[in-house]
């Protein structure tokens, strides 16, 4: 037994091989998401303990069809295997293969094996293979492939125990490569082996194939490889073709020896029958849009109760903290700043949970790839890609995971356009802003006896965001000059019943990530806002009490407090910022108070509501929307004496929020995904310009 106490294991396999289910079975709740060092590829890792008490760390690598990456996510797989000093370089690779489609699944296995990494081959979904009457000779496969083979059923978990047992024992890599790469490029391989001191032929060959992509090699090393390649006339693509065809020939022989297939494939014909309906030119789109409406409806209908519950609970907790701690600056900071800010994050959990429940159900069942298939032609007309459907739908919850979901789009231009337009989709953070403004300026009546006017306005705002996304995409399609061939090659996996365990785990992990990530930003902003709104400089701020008393000598104590508070706010640092941008936003109908909210909600849109309630000096105890709404309704425009929150102002603000890039986290993620400030800055400028002009237009149309 090795002296090392911790063992690193990587799960690798084709997409749709049930790899993530197996990962969940191995690690249970004992998992976390993070990033691979240096890149922002989601890393799922977890651990389990063996019978003899050793801790085994498991990393779930992104699904890929081969060691040659086609997308950014797949690149990490190659990096982890080729870079022997990578922190996630595995001691053992568990290659997960779909037992019903072994031929294609084994390609990746043979590549990983030839890198000299100790392997275990898992034939997952063995139950489905049995259902289809596939006879698989596990012993024969194990001998022919030179690897330990375990069959697992990811539904019942059968085989997982045996897998854990194998993993707890030392495993040696077989010396003999599966495919003899040496004869393909003998000189190139041996020269790279000598120069870089590499043991395996295939590793050296991969250095030649992936020279430009490997980040762990420095420029001098890459130059050396280029030199060797050109000296020996190594040509990447023909070599890769020949290698892949060669591997498949060997795999085919092995499969023919060890697997007996029945003539007619039952399970597949069921999938095919579903596909006839789901991709039909009428029913197909009908099902797709019906699903969208269902998701949309449930986000609003089902989330309302839990959201009220969370809001009420936190507000009670806040008042309890306020009354049970000694009053003072710290108490105010804690209750008005931190707890109020936290409420702004937690309240979105129900909506995010519902959205991700749907998304993971659609992906698990295999429907998502049909939606992509169905929408590709239409999306291409708008400069997008069938695969843009997933980010655009996710964008209705939150642009951050949505933009991360664009990694599946292989064409850079399509991906960039999708990233650029996704923030136009109305995310859940716009909802509180819309809710409060609609309640304020749209009367609650019914159109045609069925449709609630407030609901219609809300639908209209979502539609507005969608249209902005689509039309911006068309514009970019013509403006972006990229000479890159867009292609679309995608597996259509067989339909299967989603596993509730996977769905629940997805929801749990997504909510946790959201709370932590968004929470950090919002709490920081709440504290800064609280400080800026509570402190100020100058005579007006420092001598506020005397000035207010002198101006309003007849006020009662309560009224005096309210006037004093708003006077203090007006002359606080935050108030000074608001005043500074007032000339700019006056044409849209906004005053300096809204100006403050615009500035603070740049961090995140939902901060708007919290800021408005702070600005209108409403105490933490009655920090709910009705009272803010009431207070806003009573607000009077000091210049005209008429109510401040008129219909034109309300609509102008809603339109502004529909379009403006009011989200720091989105900017940060676009920066990471596009590797530079160019795109996030362009995006922000563009979105703000669209928002400003549309709000200006709206204000003038309605007034």
């Amino acid at each position: 037994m090795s002296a090392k106490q911790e063992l690193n294991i990587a799960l690798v396999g084709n997409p749709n091989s049930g790899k993530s289910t197996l990962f969940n079975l191995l690690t249970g709740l004992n998992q976390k998401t993070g990033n691979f060092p240096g890149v922002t590829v989601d890393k799922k890792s977890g651990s389990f303990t063996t019978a003899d008490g050793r801790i085994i760390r498991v990393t779930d690598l992104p699904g890929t069809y081969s060691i040659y990456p086609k997308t950014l996510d797949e690149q990490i797989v190659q990096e982890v295997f080729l870079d022997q000093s990578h922190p996630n370089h595995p001691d053992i690779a568990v290659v997960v293969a779909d037992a019903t489609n072994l031929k294609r699944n084994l390609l990746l296995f043979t590549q990983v094996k030839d890198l000299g990494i100790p392997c275990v081959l898992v034939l997952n979904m063995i139950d489905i293979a049995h259902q289809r009457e596939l006879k698989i000779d596990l012993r024969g496969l194990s001998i022919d492939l030179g690897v330990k083979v375990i069959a697992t059923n990811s539904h019942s978990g059968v085989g997982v125990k045996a897998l854990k047992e194998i993993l707890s024992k030392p495993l040696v890599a077989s010396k003999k490569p599966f495919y003899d790469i040496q004869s393909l490029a003998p000189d190139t391989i041996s020269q790279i082996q000598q120069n870089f001191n590499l043991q395996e032929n295939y590793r050296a060959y991969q250095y030649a194939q992936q020279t430009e992509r490997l980040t762990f090699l420095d420029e001098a090393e890459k130059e050396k490889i280029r030199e060797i390649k050109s000296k020996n006339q190594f040509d990447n693509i023909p070599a890769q073709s020949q290698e892949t065809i060669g591997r498949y020939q060997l795999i085919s022989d092995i499969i023919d020896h060890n697997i007996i297939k029945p003539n007619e494939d039952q399970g597949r014909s069921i999938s095919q029958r579903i596909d006839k309906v789901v991709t039909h030119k009428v029913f197909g789109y009908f099902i797709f849009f019906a699903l969208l409406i269902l998701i949309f409806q449930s986000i609003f209908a089902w989330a309302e109760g839990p959201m009220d519950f969370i809001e009420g609970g936190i507000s009670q907790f806040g008042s309890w903290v306020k009354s049970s701690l000694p009053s003072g600056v710290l108490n105010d900071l804690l209750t008005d700043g931190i707890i109020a800010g936290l409420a702004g994050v937690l309240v979105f959990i129900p909506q995010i949970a519902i959205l991700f429940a749907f998304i993971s159900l659609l992906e698990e069942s295999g429907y998502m790839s049909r939606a992509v298939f169905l929408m590709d032609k239409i999306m291409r007309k708008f400069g997008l890609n069938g695969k843009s459907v997933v980010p655009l739908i996710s964008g209705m919850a939150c642009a951050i995971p949505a933009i991360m979901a664009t990694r599946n789009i292989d064409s850079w231009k399509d991906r960039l356009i999708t990233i650029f337009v996704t923030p136009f989709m109305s995310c859940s953070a716009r909802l509180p802003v819309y809710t409060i403004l609609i309640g304020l300026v749209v009367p609650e009546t019914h159109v045609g006896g069925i449709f609630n006017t407030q609901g219609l306005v809300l639908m209209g705002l979502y539609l507005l965001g969608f249209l902005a996304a689509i039309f911006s995409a068309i514009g970019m399609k013509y403006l972006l000059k990229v000479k890159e061939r867009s292609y679309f090659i995608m597996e259509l996996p067989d339909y299967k019943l989603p596993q509730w365990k996977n769905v629940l785990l997805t929801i749990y992990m997504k909510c946790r990530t959201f709370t932590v990530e968004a929470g950090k930003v919002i709490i920081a902003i709440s504290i800064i806002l609280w400080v800026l709104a509570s402190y100020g400089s100058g005579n007006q701020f420092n001598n506020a009490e005397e000035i207010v008393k002198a101006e309003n000598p007849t006020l009662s104590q309560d009224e005096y407090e309210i006037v004093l508070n708003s006077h203090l706010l007006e002359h606080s640092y935050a108030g000074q910022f608001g005043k500074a941008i007032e000339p700019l936003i006056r044409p849209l109908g906004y005053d300096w108070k809204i100006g403050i909210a615009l500035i603070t909600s740049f961090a995140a849109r939902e901060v708007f509501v919290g800021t408005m309630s702070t600005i209108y000096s409403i105490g933490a105890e009655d920090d709910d929307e009705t009272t803010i709404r009431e207070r806003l309704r009573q607000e009077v425009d000091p210049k005209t004496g008429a109510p401040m929150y008129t219909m034109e102002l309300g609509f102008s603000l809603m339109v502004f929020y529909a379009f403006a890039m009011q989200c720091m986290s989105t900017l940060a993620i676009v920066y990471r995904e596009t590797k530079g400030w160019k795109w996030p800055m362009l995006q922000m400028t563009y979105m703000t310009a669209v928002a400003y002009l549309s709000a200006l237009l709206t204000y003038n149309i309605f007034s």
Partner: protein
Amino acid sequence: MKSLASLGINEKGIIKHFSDEQLSVKLIEMGCLPGTEVQISFAAPFNGPIAIKVSGYHLSLRKEEAECILLED
């Protein structure tokens, strides 16, 4: 020479070679090997992508990609 794009639904063919080298490696990886039988299973509406049965599973690709897959006569 006949390409995969010229086949109708349920029609079969055998892959001979590819007219686009860049694309060919991606297709080969996905199991579209020369000498393999392919069958068109169904197609997306409005001349959208097609779904083919190859190497025991379903793969979807656009018409443009299908045109690069040349079949034996």
